[in-house]
């Protein structure tokens, strides 16, 4: 993947975790894929040791492409802001 900020729009935070939390291999593969995307970065690693998740910076276009590739094994969703009510 060769997307970048200029062609994929502004980046946003996404949260990524395995659909089967115990299987972390897909998350590792996701990290490898992320390294090939210009402008993409890992913001933080979170979750319990048995339920790890990544918070990453991506463009929406890159996120969609990664979803099509990893969507059956990983949940990739916007790390939306919360509001106090």
């Amino acid at each position: 993947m060769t997307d970048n900020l200029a062609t994929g729009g502004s980046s946003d935070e996404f949260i990524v975790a395995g659909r089967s939390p115990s299987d972390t291999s897909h998350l590792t593969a996701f990290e490898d894929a992320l390294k090939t995307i210009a402008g993409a970065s890992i913001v933080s690693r979170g979750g319990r040791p048995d339920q790890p998740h990544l918070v990453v910076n991506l463009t929406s276009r890159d996120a969609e492409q990664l979803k099509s590739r990893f969507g059956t094994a990983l949940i990739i969703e916007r790390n939306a802001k919360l509001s106090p009510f």
Partner: protein
Amino acid sequence: MADNNASDNSSGKGANGRGNAAPNKTDAASPTVEPTVKARRSRFLVAARPLPGVQPMAVDAIATTLNNMPDVQIIKQVKPSGFGALSAGGGGGGMPEIVVAEMDPARGAALRASAPPNVIVEHDALLRHADDLSMAFNNAMTMQPGIGIDVRLRVAGANGQPLPKATVYVYGLGFPGQGVTDDKGEVTVTVFGGPLETIQAIYVKPMANYWDRMFERPALSDGINTLQLQPFAATFQGFPGAPYVGWGQQLMKLDQIDPSLTGQGVKVGIIDSGCDSSHPQLTHVTRGMDFTNNKDGASWTRDTMSHGTHCAGIITAALSGQMKAVRGFAPMAEVHALKVFPGGRFSDLIDALDQAIARGLDVVNMSLGSSEQSELVAHKLIEARQNGVACIVAAGNASGPVQFPGNQPSVLTVSAIGKLGEFPDDSYHARTVVPNMVAGAMFSPRFTCFGPQVAVAGPGVAILSTVPGGGYAAWDGTSMATPHITGMAALLLAHHPMFRDAAKTRNEQRVSQLYQLLASAGVRYLGDPTREGVGVPDLQRVAGLSAAPQAGNMATASAAPSLGNVSFGVPFQGSPFANAFLQPQTIHPALLQSFLQMRNAGLI
């Protein structure tokens, strides 16, 4: 002329000096400062309407009538000319002579409503140049061209003392201007779009200890304009030193249960903006974590938004020395402040819920949400419930469908309800009232989200609670409604026999029983389940709690209580919800359980 002196026109309707917004008469003699800002008078045009077969009213008769009204001032009489037959209702008389008069907008509206058919009364509206018409077509707030106007304001208390750190919003024709008062209580707010006469309203939100106030159509000068606010002490006698039970806590009968029921032994989480534990009524809150600061164990006490501290006061405020202004539901509960604001995202919420599970919290208050959905958060909420963590969640303030995560079946979702007479008429709280959503003294505020996911309602308008710095503020929101339910949940978990001994095990069954017990105590006021669920839980309706006060759940278990019955209040006569209202009745516990299961499953 209407006087916008707070001591004159900002009283509530109730007469109970304890729990409502009626001014405290003992303070009536205290010195007051005449505010310089009055309601701006409006100009109206009054003229005879030519009608076929009807004698037009003579302009002299109109002028005499208006002159006899002490609150109306005639500015001038205008005699149109040159229109002739082209004028409306043309013919021999031409355009009738017009009387231009100034009066209070309400007086003008009344004149217009009562005018005979042969008299025209209309607002002498301000003309705008053609460019301004674009707003009417695109219905968007656009920045008006032109030079900014500085509005100089001073916010003062009842005795004229300056009120620093008050947030002031000035609404003109364009975007509202905003500022915060300095140590002198002064602020200059720049607005664009027109002269001072175009200012539509000024809203002042004090830092603490005063009612907020909305000044509509303020008459402003180029100099400093003083805006006066009403202190809580003028409403609640002895505030903040005298014991006070908020109207919401009264509605839920917190003041009528045994004082020994304090929530001791229960762990409560508040996922919010932190908690200022230096507040005299919150010094017992000693546990927390800051997810906005690398899970720091100390910075959760810095609550820059005040939101979490306000929620904490409703749940757990304890009497402390001379500070007794808020009675929390569970002052001896073990409270954990899990800070995710400002800046919180789904990932922070997941971390906070993980922490709630790890700490073995019994109940978690979530006065938060998002317009977006999260599968990961939804999974985490299910996991929390399976681990015995009851998540009480606000429905949202978007006036629409319940927002995420309140729309999840794993949580207990809370809408807001308000009560008339518990706030000044000129406060912003009064703006939350929708006339066709009032039932008796209760109302469904305009902001509350609604839908089949709403399980219960909580008091959520003009809720007085703690804010950082040792003060108090009255706020609105489903955020304020939710901690009422969380607080009651803590009391039930601590003191209800259902949760003793083996039932203390934190698991999904215990959460389900808690939700059922809360629902069983519901009193419906509106008759619309999408806006109030089964109603507002009433502590006195919980069998086994009020009848035999317990010292805590370490006591010997007694016979398991029944789930109780859902009860329904008596509706206001003529309530718009009357058709949907369920007559006073009881529901068999098995039916109730099926109903709740179907609701939780999202089937109803």
